[in-house]
């Protein structure tokens, strides 16, 4: 059972990982940061990623169909993937039993990174982070 830092260091062991952060998407606060940040400013990139995550999480267009009477997932998304010419950003929402609003943000170099692997591993890490 890892803490926040162990979880981020584990994410950094993925091939092509340039930076990882745990960010609160309500306030835009980075609770933990490891490695580089896009643009070199950890706080600014956390706030921008949080804004994107909040928009995606709050718009119903991206939510899965909830069955009748079924409790809707909070947040309704699993992850968010942004790609550009040289890198990927994977934002993985962390689901907790207590009130929180955080996601793991992994910045991946496109040449060395494996998006499918990173997505699966990040999901496992998000689960282990809040286990027990």
């Amino acid at each position, binding site marked *: *059972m*890892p*803490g*926040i830092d162990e*979880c981020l260091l584990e994410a950094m062991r993925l091939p092509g990982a340039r930076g990882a952060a745990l960010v*609160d998407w*309500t*306030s*835009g*606060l980075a*609770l933990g940061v490891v490695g580089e940040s896009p643009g070199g400013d950890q*706080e600014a990139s956390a*706030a921008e990623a949080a804004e994107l995550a909040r928009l995606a999480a*709050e718009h*119903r267009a991206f939510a899965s169909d909830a069955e009748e009477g079924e409790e*809707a997932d*909070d947040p309704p998304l699993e992850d968010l993937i942004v790609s550009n010419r040289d890198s990927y950003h994977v934002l993985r929402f*962390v689901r*907790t*039993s*207590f*009130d*929180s*609003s*955080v996601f793991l943000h992994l910045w991946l170099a496109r040449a060395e990174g494996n998006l499918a692997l990173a997505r699966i591993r990040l999901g496992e890490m998000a689960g*282990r*982070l*809040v*286990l*027990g």
Partner: protein
Amino acid sequence: MTTLRTTPTTPPPRLPVRDKAAAVDRAWGGVSPMLTRLAAEKATGVLVRERGSLHLAAGHVVHAESPSAPGLDLLLTAHGTLRAEAWEAAANATDDRHATTRLLLDGGLIGPGALELCQLGALYDAAYFVLAPSSTPGRFRYGVTHPLGSVRPVPVAALERETLRRRELLHRVWPDAATDGAPLVRADPLAPPPITARQAAVLARVDGVRTAPEIARLLGRRAYPTLLDVRRLVSAGLVSPRPPAPPAVLPPPDVTDPDITLLKRLRDALEAL
């Protein structure tokens, strides 16, 4: 005299960039100069302010408490992360050498990741209220440690910066702080805009009496995100702060005729109903 020579290839002047070092300095003095000084001297103890307290260990903030924000115990037990009896057992077994959070971790009742997340959430949440502008000076008692123990200490500068950022974020959503502490009433717009599931839960508990921090406590949620939800609901026209009640004791009317005075008082009493 200087002459300015420009050629077509001269790049445009650089856009002004905010000096980050200066911004940090401003933030340091802006919230609580006393806290800044305590951080610099790596103090341990508790800073009591008007709206709550901050616990410091070696100049870092390890815990924050405010009547406006739900505590770690409530956040952990409200949605079944931890049973209330388990928390109580750990709190009762707490002594000088065994902090409550340490006992929970050692007992395998909660994982370090979940505890760090929940504790940081509670800390920043309560600190937002503790560091609110106050009319009375803060007091610091040296050497006091909190029975909950230290989970993930936060540097004072980071906490102050975040508090200022949160203040600004609220202001950007709806620039009226009255919604933060006043009883809330529902409004009925003709075409209500869509709201999120979180906001719907808050809206369902608006009853003309409860304030935003009370709704947060009721839902087992952090108070600051609830303030944000309420300001978004206000800006959407779905909720408004209840206007303050007229003063109970009205100033005596400026008339001498006893009948008119009586009638005026009767009218005022009826209006106040």
